[in-house]
């Protein structure tokens, strides 16, 4: 059923690392920026740091990591489609879901690696005493990324060419962050935006990430995890219907 999954995943990781800007651009660069510019130039945050820096900033950074992973997936899928790579892979016993799963795994590994490096850099440059449950937080981020990736499948299914993939993906994904409750409480949004926010995975990912960062038990976020799982199932089912291989 999933024949070839691990081999393909491993090859895709190697290919990603061979991209001139692949590993450095997606993982190294953000960390470098965080360290070099923010760490050196800015004064360390005062002891009574605002709750934004302590809770929202890590969550925002994590959400950005997740979204950039999704954008990268959208771009790769559209490049693979446009170049006929998907078609060539399809003309083998390789199942479509195996190809997509391999890419999802690559993106999840990438997300976890970026997060780990950010945390290390954060510890190095920000003398802020943070006692966040990192393992649980990583898990929460991976669950969130997984769910947002399904939106990525949908976008990847509809973008006509690779040239449009990145901008269209960004246009759809970044406003999702605005209504996710990270800046403005979802309840206080106008009715239309509120309704939209209710069906977007980020709306459930943000409280999950914030809660876990603050040390909440998983049991208090069963609803969020369930909503993320449902959205994942719905989007995956939808994209399976509209997905084009060429």
């Amino acid at each position, binding site marked *: 059923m999933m*024949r*070839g999954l691990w081999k*393909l995943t491993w090859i895709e990781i190697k*290919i990603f690392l061979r991209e001139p800007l692949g590993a450095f651009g997606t993982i190294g660069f953000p960390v470098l920026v965080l360290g070099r510019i923010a760490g050196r130039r800015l004064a360390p945050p005062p002891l009574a740091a605002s709750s934004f820096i302590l809770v929202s900033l890590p969550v925002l950074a994590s959400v950005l990591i997740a979204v950039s992973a999704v954008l990268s997936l959208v771009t790769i899928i559209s490049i693979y489609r446009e170049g006929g790579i998907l078609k060539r892979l399809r003309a*083998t016993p390789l199942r479509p879901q195996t190809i997509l799963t391999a890419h999802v795994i690559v993106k999840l590994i990438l997300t976890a690696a970026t997060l780990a490096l950010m945390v290390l850099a954060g510890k190095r440059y920000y003398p802020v005493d943070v006692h966040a449950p990192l393992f649980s937080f990583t898990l929460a981020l991976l669950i969130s990324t997984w769910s947002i990736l399904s939106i990525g499948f949908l976008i990847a299914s509809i973008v006509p060419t690779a040239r449009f993939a990145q901008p269209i993906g960004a246009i759809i994904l970044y406003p999702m962050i605005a209504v996710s409750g990270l800046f403005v409480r979802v309840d206080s949004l106008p009715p239309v935006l509120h309704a939209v926010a209710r069906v977007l995975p980020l709306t459930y990912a943000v409280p999950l990430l914030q809660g876990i960062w603050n040390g909440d038990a998983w049991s208090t976020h069963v609803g969020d995890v369930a909503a993320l799982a449902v959205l994942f199932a719905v989007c995956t089912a939808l994209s399976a219907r509209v997905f084009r291989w060429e």
Partner: protein
Amino acid sequence: MHLSVSTILQTIMRPVIQVSGVRKTYGKTVAVDEVSFEVNEGEIFGLIGPNGAGKTTTMECIEGLRTPDQGTISVLGLDPFRHVYKLQDRIGVQLQQAQLQKRIKVWEALDLWALLYQKKAIDGEHLLEQLGLADKRGAWFMNLSGGQKQRLFIALALINDPEVVFLDELTTGLDPQSRRAIWDLVRGIRARGKTVFLTTHLMEEAERLCDRVAIIEHGRIIDIDRPERLVDRHCPERTVVLATDDPIAEDRFRAVPGVEAVILTDLRFTIRGRGDDLVTEVIRCLSENRIRVTDFRTILPNLEDVFLKLTGHSIRE
């Protein structure tokens, strides 16, 4: 007891591909229509025609990559649409204009492909050697030349030791030397008892490689047969050009059976006629009349001429 040749052939040859009444449209464009043919086990079958004639569409319907609007297809007893994975396990496919990941290495691609099939793969290293790619095994796909990419795709099509191999425009863009090497390789596939289904717009390729060809134009099949029989059927004209200064020659040539025209220009005769026997008859006439010739050559029609005759235009137009 009168068994026709075709009845005998049908009992010996097992069709591995059966296509019947296939029609495929894209919007209002009819890509292929009423396409029917059979491909027998162990033969090299070519679908020939100009670009846009419907070759690739037909092939991709048979491979299970496209679903025909009408008609039925059976490959190795399987329905390519319903049993697509089962089928793809037993066939090898080389697609026109396919790409791989830019930075995948040659050996990684073979390694991945080898793992995808149920059946044990054949030796990838040996395959690379056969295809002259051994020194490129560690190269990235994006750094291969057009011919090397094409040979890698052929290697990927053969890695699972398939029962039927599909090759779409396999030598397009290759230099004559690599082309010949690949023809030998395809003959080698047939020698191992496999069936080859290929498309080409190169008449020379079809003539040298294919046991049988189907000529397709505007999505319809015009004729199917062995290349030489297509030539005999549609272009029976034969031409002999020879040089002699013997004064009796012209009258003798006119008396040769099958000859339709004798043209003399500068001691050079152009003898036109019909039928396979024309050349033999001309040689017999030369020998019986002791006519001394200083030059002798024959101009025989080929598939290119057949195509021109059947469609009214050259395949390159």
